[in-house]
């Protein structure tokens, strides 16, 4: 493939991240403009690249000698989601980050994180995946600590230690797979380990991959860094972390390696199902009792990630045990659609919390109240996002949760469907609590003169809310065939897809 677009996804954010400290050290407006231009152009490139498929060979070296980038349905979908959320987050941070003084450093680190995530999604080579994973992770450690207050530093240190352990495990797994096969290219590795997955070394590599990417995706039991890191970060960074980082670095990389390189067998799929169900239940029950708005949202992230992992694991289990292919594709479709939906509504929720924090100065639900008259736009978008996450029709969360429940029924796991519905109900309860405490009720004395969020912040909220309402239309069969079905095919055809696409160029 000879298109000029894929390198731009890495080169533009890297270039502008290196350029901003040189030219915009004192000029905040210039840093704002450059940062937003960068993410807007990345969004345009990701949308233009959507129909492309194939293998991009870096430097002209043929695989398996060279590093290759793979463009298939799943990576294109993830690229659009990641770049869309990062554009909205930079739009929001023009006004939100006024309270911090080193804006040029913020944009630099932000763009490095986006470059890292784009690289993880594009990469078709195991060590390249690790390098971009580390770029994105280290930038996010620094961004969580950006404000320099007590809790931000403590949360960042905790995140750094756990995240480093995860990354080192990923590197160890890559080393083990190199030891067995002698190749790093994903297609070559998958061809060479076919049928040998039960060997002790490869089993160890699979376990290390699951644990390492599980730490990045914050599934239970690797979740302890998330409830501290996501609330302490500035609001647009929380939106990025919860909205795309745990997906691109965690769930996407995990599914890519498990479905396309190692191959799913019933044991691995059973582990995914167990971990997903545990995350759903633990996350939502720990979330209901929270009184800090952002901490509540962080626990809900764990729970919703459980949905995605459950959907993918269910699909993998049905495929591995030779069950009905229709049910398997339904489950994977539900999982991937929920991944896209969650990016949109969770980042909208975090941006709303940032808007409320900017206006009222607090994150504690008990100190808020009665904001419905002062902040109508924030209230409307927050209501839309809460209904989406709770799975109320016609917003997007409903459709993806319905797909997962239907797939669980079709595969004969009625108890999983029951757990899913129960978790949705508890999610609805906790978000009704949020809406009641934040917006309804009486306006307390200290909040007498709050005003609505500035225009730029409101634009990003409205953009995401419109997407929340309209994304249900992605399931219309004509649109679904273009957008979601190729992504599902990339995972459900598993090993054959990977080998044909990546190995024999």
């Amino acid at each position: 493939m000879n298109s000029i677009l894929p390198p731009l996804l890495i080169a533009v954010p890297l270039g502008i991240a290196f350029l901003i400290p040189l030219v915009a050290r004192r000029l905040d407006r210039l840093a704002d403009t450059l940062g937003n231009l960068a993410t807007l152009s990345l969004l345009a490139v990701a949308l233009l690249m959507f129909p492309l498929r194939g293998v991009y060979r870096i430097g002209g070296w043929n695989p398996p000698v060279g590093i290759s980038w793979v463009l298939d349905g799943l990576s294109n979908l993830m690229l659009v989601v990641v770049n869309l959320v990062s554009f909205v987050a930079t739009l929001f941070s023009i006004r939100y980050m006024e309270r911090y003084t080193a804006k040029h450093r913020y944009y630099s680190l932000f763009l490095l994180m986006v470059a890292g995530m784009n690289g993880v999604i594009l990469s078709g080579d195991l060590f390249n995946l690790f390098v971009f994973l580390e770029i994105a992770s280290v930038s996010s450690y620094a961004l969580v600590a950006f404000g320099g207050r007590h809790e931000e530093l403590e949360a960042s240190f905790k995140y750094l230690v756990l995240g480093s352990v995860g990354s080192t495990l990923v590197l160890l797994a890559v080393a083990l797979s190199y030891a067995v096969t002698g190749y790093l290219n994903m297609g070559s590795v998958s061809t060479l380990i076919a049928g040998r997955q039960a060997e002790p070394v490869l089993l160890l590599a699979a376990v290390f991959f699951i644990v390492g990417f599980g730490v990045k995706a914050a599934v239970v039991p690797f979740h302890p860094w998330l409830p501290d890191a996501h609330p302490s970060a500035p609001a647009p960074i929380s939106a990025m972390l919860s909205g795309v980082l745990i997906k691109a670095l965690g769930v996407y990389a995990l599914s890519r390696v498990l479905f396309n390189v190692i191959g799913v067998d019933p044991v691995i799929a059973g582990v995914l199902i167990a971990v997903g169900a545990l995350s759903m239940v633990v996350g939502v029950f720990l979330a209901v009792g929270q009184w800090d708005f952002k901490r509540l949202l962080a626990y809900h992230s764990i729970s919703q990630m459980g949905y995605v992992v459950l959907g993918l694991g269910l699909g993998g289990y049905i495929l591995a045990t030779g069950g009905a292919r229709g049910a398997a594709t339904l489950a994977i479709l539900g999982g991937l659609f929920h991944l896209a939906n969650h990016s949109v509504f969770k980042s909208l929720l975090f941006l709303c919390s940032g808007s409320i924090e900017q206006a009222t100065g607090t994150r504690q639900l008990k100190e808020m109240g009665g904001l419905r008259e002062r902040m109508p736009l924030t209230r409307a978008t927050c209501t839309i996002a809460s209904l989406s996450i709770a799975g109320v029709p016609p917003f997007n969360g409903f459709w993806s949760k319905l797909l997962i429940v239907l797939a669980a029924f079709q595969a004969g796991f009625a108890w999983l469907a029951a757990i899913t519905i129960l978790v949705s109900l508890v999610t609805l309860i906790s978000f009704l609590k949020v809406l009641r405490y934040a917006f309804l009720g009486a306006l307390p004395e200290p909040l007498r003169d709050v005003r609505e969020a500035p225009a730029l912040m409101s634009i990003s909220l409205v953009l995401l809310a419109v997407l929340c309402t309209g994304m249900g239309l992605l399931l219309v069969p004509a649109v679904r065939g273009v957008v979601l079905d190729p992504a599902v095919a990339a995972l459900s055809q598993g090993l054959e897809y990977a080998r044909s696409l990546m190995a024999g160029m």
Partner: protein
Amino acid sequence: MTGMTVIVKTVTRWVKVFIFLYGVYIVITGHLTPGGGFAGGVIIACSYILLTLAYGKEFALKRLGPRTAAGLDSGGSLLFLIVALLGIGSGGLFFTNFLQKRYPGGEFQLASAGFIPIANIAIGLKVFSCLFLVFIILSILRIVLDAEGKQSLVQRWPEGKEE
């Protein structure tokens, strides 16, 4: 008196140039011998750190201040990115080695292997300035906010509190 004793200062004054030159040698012949940008950049940074240890911080900061080091940092990275992007112009793909690989002088010369020497120099610049900046910020300077909320770099232990 800042810095170390006379013996250390004299030996440093003689030796620092050789360390710097050795680092530059490792960077430039990275495509022929082991080393390359990373290792060479670390050695060059070590020569500046030796200067800081032996002569004291003001002397070293006058030689290479934080602002210059940050500029070199960004400059080195941008040079590397530009070299990678230029590969698209004449080869079609990212990172294509677009310079000649074999000059009339034969193989294994300094000017061979395409753009790898330029990439090595860019990485050497970046690693050297980055490591020196990290060393300075962790040990000597720190970022404070003054009265109107602007950030500036001041020394951690000002003169009065020295040993």
